């Protein structure tokens, strides 16, 4: 399971996630993109216009109708053919619906954090609580998780802190590419800004981030580049100076900016 360290920031061999001729719906024109290390790419679009499907295909959760997704990574990576392959290649995915697909409500904060990376804490087949705690503490500090009792059920935490624990679970995989499906949905404003800082920090350390967000403000605030989806195609790719609320909304509604 993805037992490698993060690539050095901007390592010269690492060329990121290469998406070639990806078709996400019948009849839609193929998408070719590259997610570079250190880059934050936003996905925008009206609900159901393919941005979520695109993100899920990157995570290996939905089979593409055509084209390929390849993670180009020194000493790892490979073609993404399924979720497990994606994770072992170096991709982590944070799902949208926290309650349905994220948390394990009866389990403790620590259990929820470690569940994807259980084998890292084992000594002779048994989980070492100390090792797990040490690993958790790294992310607790990094994400400033407020959990007075990490052995209490995760449902005792606020929504924002639950989301941080889920993010910690994903980061514990030490991915090269992090896919976030509406990561600040139902999260309070203070926590949002903590998360934004974390995302920027991760990118600065060389991780590639793809963020799907239903809030344009958030995308403008965070992303270097935005892919606006319309009818299962990338209707516009906006970056730099031209990245404004107006340009994104125009593209979402299929109007020329």
């Amino acid at each position, binding site marked *: 399971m993805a037992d490698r360290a993060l690539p050095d920031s901007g390592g010269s061999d690492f060329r990121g996630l290469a998406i070639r001729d990806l078709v996400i719906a019948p009849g839609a024109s193929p998408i070719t993109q590259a997610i570079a290390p250190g880059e934050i790419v936003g996905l925008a679009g009206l609900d159901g216009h393919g941005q979520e499907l695109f993100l899920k295909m990157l995570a290996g959760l939905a089979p593409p109708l055509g084209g390929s997704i390849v993670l180009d990574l020194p000493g790892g990576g490979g073609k993404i053919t399924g979720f497990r392959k994606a994770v072992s290649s170096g991709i982590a995915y944070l799902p949208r619906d926290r309650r349905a697909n*994220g948390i*394990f*409500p*009866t*389990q403790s904060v620590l259990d929820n954090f470690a*569940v994807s990376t*259980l*084998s890292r804490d084992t000594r002779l087949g*048994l989980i070492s609580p100390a090792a797990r705690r040490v690993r958790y503490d790294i992310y607790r500090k990094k994400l400033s998780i407020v959990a007075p009792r990490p052995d209490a059920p995760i449902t005792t935490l606020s929504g924002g802190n639950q989301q941080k624990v889920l993010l910690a679970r994903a980061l514990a995989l030490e991915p090269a590419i992090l896919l976030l499906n509406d990561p600040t949905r139902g999260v309070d404003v203070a926590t949002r800004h903590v998360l934004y800082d974390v995302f920027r920090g991760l990118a600065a350390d060389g991780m590639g981030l793809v963020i799907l967000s239903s809030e344009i403000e958030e995308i403008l605030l965070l992303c270097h580049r935005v892919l606006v989806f319309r009818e299962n195609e990338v209707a516009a790719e906006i970056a730099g100076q031209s990245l404004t609320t107006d340009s994104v909304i125009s593209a979402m509604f299929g109007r020329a900016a």
Partner: protein
Amino acid sequence: MTGRNLFATTNARVIGAFCVAALLHAAGTALIPGYSTPFAVRAMLVLASLLAVASIGQTLVVIMGGIDLSIPFVIGFANVVAAQLYGDGWNFFLVCGLVGVLAIIIGGLNGLISRSLDIQPLIVTLGIGMVVQGLVLLWTAGFPSGSAPQAVSSFVSIGGSAGPLPVPWLVPSLVVLTACVVLVLERTPYGRRLYALGSNPGAAPLALIDPVRMWVVTYAASAFFAAVAGVLLLGFTGSAYGDVGQPYLFQTIAAVVVGGAALVGGRGSYLGTIAGVLVLTEINTLLIGLGFQPSAVQAALGFIIVLLVSLYGRERHVSATI
């Protein structure tokens, strides 16, 4: 959830169940002469240990969010097949190995069919259990023969002793087994994944948990321990009997539930099941000691299960799940 009532946490439920068992024992001692004599206590410990072995699998399966109705049939299967083959002159270790492997296949099939096709395990385990029992009956023509080797009989005999201890080896072995099961559940990746899968099946695949694999392994383990119980019961009763497992159908479920597990999954512990086993054994012994007919004992058992679960096994109202 937490702190809302005394029994909110799993630990409190387990302690509560142990207290109930202790109270029942105290009541028995006060009401019935000879209730706490060494022989009576030994008999209760042996009966409880047999039920505890049969309940290991049900505990694991219930934590995962399933249910296993094939346990009594697998117990009967192991009981009869082991006796028959040993009676035919087979080496007993070979017999146990074969029975164990067959049980694992039966259980694996239960898990595979239920999970991969998303069918209620209630129906699948019942159907598979009936097939297994039918095959055994067909093979023995309904009249199983044979017996257990002396070693197995003395291993479970109420009058037996384990070295200096005045109990048969079954009891200390169960203590060790309990420690192993608790360790597996609390401290291994398998155990943590089991709880996670039961807690939220929808989130499990995204946390790199393979549901089908977990179900196959867990139902296989359930059938394996049912087979162990079947062989032990052979030693206990002395001769093979295909329906020997039938009382265990509801007793294993009752023990798991009284021990604080939720049948929707994600909650429960084997220590809780042990507490549940003790409660059930105490109630049985107490009521029979008070001169009740078996039928009245059964009725009382039903009443007490409902009473205990209403104390600490209540589900949330639908408005609390939105």
